[in-house]
């Protein structure tokens, strides 16, 4: 039906998150319709991103500069390090604008199923970073899942001999959440983590 080049474009677009073969075809047609205003700038942006964006060697964040803008920011607190599983979590924390310390991206979580062990997450590098720097507090912001908390406990163990306080994110009722709509596990976690008012 379509030429090989168009089929290749559709197949590549269909690999993107949120797009299936049908929506990829629509996206391809839209791009072809808006060749000058959308397709060429997109191709240029993709090419530039592919060559210039790299993972920061200090924290693991994506940026065009090395080290990344967050690591270079002198206004940030050097004494707090927040450990996240992936760049998406880092971006979520940045969006919330409630944290002004440094980051460390693990690039995954300990998982026996996926064969991910401590060496794959660069935990030794993390321990070296904590040992070498002026870090006084480490915040473990891994997901509230079995793998996420297993990873957090493992890292907490590895950091236990060092002169840093280790904390984890609270688990419980989300802002705007109603108890009736929460699962039992979240309600129990919220009860356990209750605080004085």
């Amino acid at each position, binding site marked *: 039906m379509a030429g090989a080049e168009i089929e290749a474009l559709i197949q590549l677009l269909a690999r993107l998150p949120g797009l299936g073969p049908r929506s990829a075809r629509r996206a391809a047609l839209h791009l072809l319709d808006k060749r000058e205003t959308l397709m060429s700038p997109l191709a240029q942006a993709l090419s530039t991103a592919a060559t210039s964006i790299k993972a920061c060697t200090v924290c693991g964040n994506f940026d065009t500069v090395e080290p990344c803008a967050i690591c270079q920011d002198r206004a940030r607190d050097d004494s707090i390090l927040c450990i996240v599983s992936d760049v998406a979590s880092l971006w979520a924390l940045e969006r919330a604008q409630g944290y002004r310390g440094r980051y460390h991206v693990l690039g995954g979580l300990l998982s026996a199923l996926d064969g991910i062990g401590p060496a794959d997450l660069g935990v030794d590098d993390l321990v070296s970073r904590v040992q070498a720097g002026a870090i006084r507090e480490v915040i473990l912001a891994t997901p509230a*899942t*079995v793998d996420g908390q297993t990873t957090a406990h493992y890292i907490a163990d590895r950091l236990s001999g060092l002169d840093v306080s280790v904390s984890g994110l609270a*688990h419980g009722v989300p802002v705007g959440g109603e108890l009736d709509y929460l699962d039992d596990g979240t309600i129990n976690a919220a009860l356990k983590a209750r605080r004085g008012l």
Partner: protein
Amino acid sequence: MDWRDQAIVLSVKSHGENGAIVALLTQEHGRQAGMVRGAHSIKQRGVLLPGNRVWASWRARLAEHLGALRCELVSAHAAQALDDPARLAALSSACALTLIALPEHQPLPALFGALTALLDALPHPSWPSVYVHWELALLRGLGYGLDLTTCAATGVNDGLAYVSPKSGRAVSLSAGEPYADKLLPLPRFLAEGGEGAPADITNGLTLTGYFLDRHVLSAHGLSFPPARERLVERVRGLSPTIP
């Protein structure tokens, strides 16, 4: 083909953008797997965690198909264990061992009951002893049960202190003393009941670990899941009064 059954979530592996392949141990249908659509939705995220007890509905055209699975939460065991590294290691170890040791589609209601009992016991201080009993139940359920009731050499049922690594039978202190270096120590709580001290739990895990490795894992070219190794390390580090 369809069924509805009580089940315990053993593993959740992401599939595509929103789906996940979920492995379960069901009460009447054994170990099963199915595809859950929308597994990463806000509603399902807290349900599909290893160790959670659910009501599962499975549907497929043929019994051999992967099938579509729907899960409703019954007990959120995972959330209760998340803050405690030792309990979390026990939960992960039990789920991982069940996943690799049990055959698919074979009803094993006794093992479902044993795993449920372990998960129910996790919030209580006696959980390490229950965990060791669970590994014994796993061996028994797979046909490799240990006989810890009488001495294999003398037939007495008092003073049992060792287990023969060859036969898996208990040996009394007097009969086993000359061969103590070749026998596995039998923790007192496994022979006489009650709760074990941390040293007894470590011996219990060594005992069950030996037979699990010999009969269940090495025989199939498998090794212990990292979660169990973490559990052994955690138990070694437990204080004399287990919280």
